[in-house]
C-alpha cells in the first residue's frame, strides 16, 4: 500500500542523502519526494511517498526515526490529511483541439501559465486522482513535456462539535 510520510529534519547539508541512502540501502523505493524549509529555517520538511506492507512501513518509519538528524516522522496515511501535488504540462495541440485544451484547463481549475504559437503550458494542482484524470484527457491532444512537483501533505485538524 502507498504511504505518505512526513519527516521533520535538521536543515543541514547531507541530510537528504542520509534519508535517500536509508531507502536505497534497504531496497525500499521512493515514489515521490519533496523537500522545503519550514517556518523555522533550521528545520526542513520532507514528504516521501513509498510503497510497502505494514511491516516494511513500520521499519521505514523506525529507521527514519533512528537517524540522528531526523526530528519527527509522521505516517500521514494513518490519519485524515490533505495531499497536494502540482504538475506543469506543456501541450502542443492541433489547432482544432486548442479550444478543448483550454476548456479542460478551466474544468480542472488549472491555469495557462505560458503560451506560444504551438503550445500551452498548464499548471494544475490536486491529488493523484485529479492529476491522473487530466493527464488521460490531455494525452490524445499531444503532451510535449510533463513535470510534477512531488507530493506534499498536511494533517487535517479535527472540528469540535
Amino acid at each position: 500500500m502507498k504511504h505518505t510520510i512526513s519527516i521533520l529534519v535538521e536543515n543541514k547539508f547531507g541530510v537528504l542523502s542520509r534519508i535517500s541512502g536509508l531507502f536505497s540501502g534497504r531496497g525500499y523505493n521512493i515514489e515521490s519526494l519533496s523537500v522545503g524549509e519550514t517556518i523555522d529555517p533550521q528545520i526542513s520538511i520532507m514528504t516521501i511517498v513509498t510503497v510497502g506492507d505494514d511491516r516494511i512501513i513500520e521499519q521505514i518509519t523506525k529507521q527514519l526515526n533512528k537517524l540522528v538528524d531526523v526530528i519527527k516522522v509522521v505516517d500521514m496515511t494513518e490519519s485524515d490529511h490533505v495531499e497536494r501535488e502540482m504538475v506543469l504540462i506543456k501541450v502542443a495541440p492541433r489547432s482544432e483541439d486548442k479550444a478543448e485544451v483550454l476548456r479542460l484547463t478551466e474544468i480542472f481549475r488549472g491555469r495557462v501559465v505560458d503560451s506560444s504559437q504551438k503550445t500551452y503550458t498548464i499548471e494544475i494542482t490536486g491529488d493523484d486522482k485529479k492529476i491522473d484524470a487530466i493527464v488521460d484527457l490531455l494525452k490524445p491532444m499531444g503532451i510535449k513535456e510533463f513535470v510534477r512537483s512531488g507530493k506534499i501533505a498536511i494533517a487535517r485538524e479535527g472540528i469540535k462539535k
Partner: protein
Amino acid sequence: MKLSGAEILLKCLKREGVKHIFGYPGGVVLNIFDLLHEDKELKLILTRHEQGAVHAADGYARATGKPGVVLVTSGPGATNTVTGIATASMDSIPLVVFCGQVPTALIGNDAFQEADIVGITRPCTKHNYLVKDIKDLGRIIKESFYVATTGRPGPVLIDLPKDVTGSKTEFGWPDKVDIRSYNPTYQGNEWMIKQAAHAIAKAKKPVIIAGGGVILSGGAKELKELAEYTNVPVTMTLMGLGAFPGTHKLSLGMPGMHGTYFANKSIQESDLLIAVGMRFDDRVTGKISGFAPQAKIVHIDIDPTSIRKNVHVDIPIVGDVKRVLVILNKILKADVKEQWKEIRKAWLKQIQTWKMDRPLVYDETSDVIKPQYVVEKIYELTKGDAIVTTEVGQNQMWAAQFFKFDKPRTLLTSGGLGTMGYGFPAAIGAQLAFPNKLVIDIAGDGSIQMNIQELATAVINRLPVKVAILNNRYLGMVRQWQELFYQGRYAHTRLDETVPDFVKIAEAYNAVGLRATKKSEVETVLKEGLKVKKPVIMDFVVDWKEKVFPMVPAGAAIDEMLFPEEKKKKKPVKKLKAVK
C-alpha cells in the same frame, strides 16, 4: 585564549577521558600528529594498517566498555578504516574515528588523497560529521562521544579538513549535549514489562536468548538474577557469550547455525522466548518461518528498529536492557507468586535429556591435532581466565563452542560483519587496556594473514598477546560448505603450498614462534606460549578435514541439524507446523 583546531581536538579528547588513540599519520593530519608528539597524556598507538587501528580501537572498546578512538589521514587512510567501522557498526561498538580531510577550499576538487569519507561511511556509521567551521569543532566532538556511547552504541566518524585543524578560534566546549532529534529510550514501558512478567509466570517451556545488548548495557548481573529466580534456561548468541556464565547449570550454550543441539531444540519447543538485547540475526533464527513455531516472544531491546524486524513479537519492550531487567525482576519478586522450581521441573528435565543425547563432541582418540582439542586445552590451562578474541570462520565457531565464557567482555569477535583479520588487532587493543591480563587470539591460517602486519605493533608496544593459529591449510569454513554443498570442489580455498612458516614470521618480527604438529605437543606448546611475556604465535597444525558441527544448513530450520556422524544426511527432527 585562541587555540588551533588540533589543540582543541586534543583538549576535547582529554576531557572525554581518552588515554589511547590508535592511528596512522599522513599529510593532512600532521597538525594533530605534531602536537601528539609532545603530549604526555595521550598516547598514540601506531598500527601498521589503518584497518588494524580501527579493529584495535574496537577491541579496546569491547574489553573496557569505553569508546575506542582512531586518528587517520585522508583518502586511503580514511577508506582503509571502512571495514573496521562497518565491523563496529554491525556489533554496536562505540568508536570515534577522526579522519583528516583536504582543506575545505579543495573539497570536491579530486585533490590529492581526497575521498568523500562522510559519504562513503554514511551507511556504516551511527552518525558522521564533516567539520566545515572550526567554531563547531568542540561541540561536534562532544556530540560524537555522546552519540557513540549512548542508546544503541556505534561508530561515529568526524572528517577534519586540514585548514580546520590549522586555524585558530576561542575554545568552546558545551557542558551538556542537547540534540533535539536524538533521544534514545532507556526506560521500558512498565505495563509491557508487567505483561512480560506474567508471561514468564505462565510459561511452561520458557527460554531466554541473551545477546550482545546485555553486555553493552552492563546487565549481566540482572540477567543472572532473572534466570536463577525464575529458573529459566539461557542461551547466548555469539555476541552474548559471557553475558551469562557458560558454566552455569541453566546455560544452553550458543543457539543457531553452529549452536548446540539442546539450545536449538529448546527454542523450537519453547512456548515463550525472552529475547534480551539481541536482534534475531539469520545465523540465530535459521529459516524464519520455521523458527520457534510455538513460542510467544518477549523482546527487550534499546533499538526499536530491531523489534519486529525479523520475527513477530508479542510483547515488545523498548529500553535499556539493564534498566528493564531491574524492573522486571522487581515485578516478578513482588507481584508474581510462583513455585518456580516446581513449574520448571519437567522442562529442565527435558532439556537435560537433550543435553545427554547430543553434547558437543569431537573425535578425541585421534593423534592428529583436532582444533577443538586445542581450544579445550586453552580453556583448561587458562581456567577460562582470559580475554579471547577470534578471527572469523571455523576458529570462531570452535572458540564459541568449546571455550566457556563466564564473564562479560571476555569474548571479542566480529559477529555481525564476520570480518576476517579482526581478532589479532582487537587482541592488541584489549591487551593495551589490560596489560596484565592474558589475551589470546584464536585464529585460522587464512584470517591471521589478513592483519599479520600488526605483529610489529604488538612487539614495539610490548603487548604480550598470544595467537593460537588452528592451521588447517584451508579457508576452513568455506571448504566445509564446499564439501557439504558443492560436491567437494574446493574452489580457491586450499592454501596449502602458500601457507607461510608462522614461526619464522613471528621471529622475523622479533616475537616468539612455536609449533605443534602432534597432539602430544599441544599442551607443551601452550604452556610455554602462555608463559612468555612477549607476543607469541603458536602454530597448531590441525586436521584439515575437521568440520564445525552441529550445523544448520542455510535456509533450514534450526532443528534440522547436521551432526558429525551423519554428515550430509538431513534428519529433520520433526515436521514443523504453524508459520508465524
